[in-house]
């Protein structure tokens, strides 16, 4: 077990290193000099020189890369050019919106998909199954930001149950904050839940056809018992993979959804930074999101080991 964790941990670190090189290199290939790029056409040579010094551009790429990584490791993400404030503080503020939103959506998606997928598999070939398959087929096809707009139209504009956007902040209390995140989370979760429910159903159907389920039935277990005690846990392994992949989609989706609801999250920050050509912020936010995705995949690997004893034994 320890060996497995160590192995996955090593792979996590390796992925992070390579990912940081990719992000750094991508920003490096900016046409011309980053400083003049960020300042635009009309900058004076003095201003460019000043920014160059501030960004440390006079040093070689390797030194700057190491400085950047070293800074991030100590929580120093640099200073935003447009806002003149430390990026780490800005990111931390915005993360308080984006991360809860993605997790809220993930929880909703899982909570919806599991029972629905299991229900459809247990009632295979019935009207229930056909209904679930039809509904999820539609759910998969709906763009989450459009669904979000429809939710606003119905629940905010017409019914006035929710406000159409904005975020009161966590200081205003947990409930108002969660309420503000509810419509965005539903918009994010429903398409993902459709995918997850379909995966759950087909994985469970595959497992129900396995020999060991027949063995369980030969021991005297009912269909339901065999499903709950034997098929379900085995069916979980591909489902975990999808949950891991979905987290990165949810994070990316959260960035888009924030625009629909005017939420002050990472998405708003990164789009403002792009239009202001604030590369320091873009770089940090992208790296942070990649970090989140890689860490979640690591967590999924650990979850595999928790479910599957065959992984625990091997190095």
């Amino acid at each position, binding site marked *: 077990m320890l060996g497995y964790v160590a192995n996955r941990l090593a792979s996590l670190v390796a992925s992070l290193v390579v990912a940081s090189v990719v992000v750094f290199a991508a920003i490096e290939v900016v046409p011309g000099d980053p400083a003049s790029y960020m300042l635009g056409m009309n900058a004076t040579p003095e201003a460019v020189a000043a920014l160059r010094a501030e960004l440390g551009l006079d040093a070689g790429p390797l030194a700057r890369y190491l400085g950047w990584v070293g800074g991030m490791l100590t929580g120093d993400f640099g200073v935003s050019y447009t806002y003149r404030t430390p990026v780490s503080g800005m990111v931390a503020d915005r993360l308080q919106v984006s991360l809860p939103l993605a997790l809220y959506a993930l929880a909703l998606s899982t909570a919806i998909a599991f029972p629905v997928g299991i229900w459809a598999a247990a009632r295979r070939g019935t009207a229930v199954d056909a209904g679930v398959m039809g509904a999820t087929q539609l759910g998969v096809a709906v763009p989450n930001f459009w669904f979000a707009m429809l939710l606003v139209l119905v629940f905010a504009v017409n019914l006035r149950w929710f406000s159409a956007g904005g975020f009161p902040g966590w200081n205003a209390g947990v409930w108002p904050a969660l309420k503000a995140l509810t419509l965005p989370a539903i918009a994010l979760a429903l398409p993902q839940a459709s995918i997850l429910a379909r995966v759950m159903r087909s994985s469970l159907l595959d497992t129900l056809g396995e020999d060991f389920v*027949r*063995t369980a039935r*030969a021991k005297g277990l009912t269909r339901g018992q065999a499903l709950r005690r034997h098929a379900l846990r085995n069916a979980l392994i591909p489902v975990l993979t999808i949950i891991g992949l979905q987290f990165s989609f949810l994070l990316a989706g959260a960035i888009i959804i924030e625009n629909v609801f005017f939420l002050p999250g990472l998405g708003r920050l990164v789009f403002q930074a792009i239009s202001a050509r604030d590369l320091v912020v873009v770089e940090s936010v992208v790296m942070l999101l990649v970090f989140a995705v890689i860490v979640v995949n690591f967590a999924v690997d650990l979850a595999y080991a928790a479910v599957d004893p065959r992984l625990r034994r091997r190095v």
Partner: protein
Amino acid sequence: MNLLAVEDLSVEIGGAPVLRRVSLALEPGETLGVIGESGSGKSMTALAIMGLLPRSARASGRALLGEVDLLARTEAEMCAIRGRDVGMIFQEPMTALNPLQTIGDQVAETVRVHRRASRAEAQGVARLTLERVGLPQARFPLDRFPHELSGGQRQRVGIAMAIALRPRLLIADEPTTALDVTTQAAILDLLRRLVAEDGMGLMLITHDLAVVAETASRVAVMTAGEVVERGATREVLRAPRHPYTRTLLAAAADRPMRLPRIARTPLLKVEGVTRDYPGARRGLFGRETPTRAVRNVSFTLHAGESLGLVGESGCGKSTLTRAVLGLDALQGGRIVLDGEEIRAGEAMARELRARIQAVFQDPYGSFDPRWRVGRLVAEPFHVVDDAPGGEARTQAVAAALEAVGLAASDAGRFIHEFSGGQRQRIAIARALIIRPKLIVLDEAVSALDVRVRAQILDLLDGLSTRYGLSYLFISHDLHVVRAVTDRVLVMRAGEIVEAGPTERVFSRPTHPYTRELLAATPVLEMAG
């Protein structure tokens, strides 16, 4: 008083009949062998008795367990009967156990679904049952997972699950088919012992006449969903009445009249060959330590000879075969064919490749499903420099197909249109088409039913005479090897432990392992 009486059991799936008025009877303490080839309906009979037929199936007739008609029970009642009164074990031990649950929990579950037992009590029963099936506490604690056990050990766990509550009836569906011969012997011993100890009835379903001959006191022969003959095993084997039983017995006993060949010229020389499996990759650069699959093996195959290579799974015979075919590189020693050294992969000279061809085990996996038979059979022409093209190639394919008893017109068909036996004929045609000197037959008849197998063996024998072919015949089946080889090598744990003329090795084995193998092989005593 019968323990089990199946009366006029018929089953339809989607309107198509799969069982027709099957009747069987079994007494307590008795073993009934149900024999038949694949598709004969023997497994379907077992599933019908268990009430585990597919949902689309409709059963009629009666299956009386004592006084109780199992076919008339509700699903809830059957759940109470399965596992308590009737246990069942299946063919594939590798997939029949839940990989995520310990063996102790899986055996204890049988107890817990039927009795209000505490976890500790159930685990206690599981412990005792595992001891009974030969998995002692010291080496097999309850918290072992299935992947930590071998196939034979897993089958023992399967048996433990089935007998934990000492059912009156045990149904075993091909329980040893997936196992090696020595493991098979041990499992059959275990089943016989359990029947004697518990006085339960055993319904043993198998395709192997010899297994039935050794284990069952009575036998029922099934074909095409019907029982065509039943009676005491000795009587049926000695004086079969139904024509089908007679062909089955004849095929099982079939031995092509193989004239001893006088062979002097060495064709294939294997000299001190060692083969390692690379360890699994660990990270970008690391690897686990390699496993030695073949150690320092040497032998010679002479021109015109048929040489057998026998051994159980994992003994290294497949690895050795791949090396002989020039598919994998050696870690030591060399292999010389016709005076030239065999090298792995594309390094092997084309002329040399053209002198050796192969027939593999799986009649379904051996052919690209998207190619027509003509193109499949002609594929080895790739190694021949002056390969015939156009009409000449069509002629060559036709000749090869006709040589193996198929029609020239079959070249235009796809492989899924052929039966298993026909496919092995096509595989032989493919091996034959470039007239190699040596054909490697890797378990080439193992997947075939007994009657088809006999036909293919006859065909191979005829071809070797006609074309002066040599065979390297790899098999786990001692009967087959005895029937068709001149000399035999016995392989175990990567080494050849015994070699010699086939009849000598089989009648007077010198190595203890050869003796063990022979003793474990069920024998069909033909009294007629």
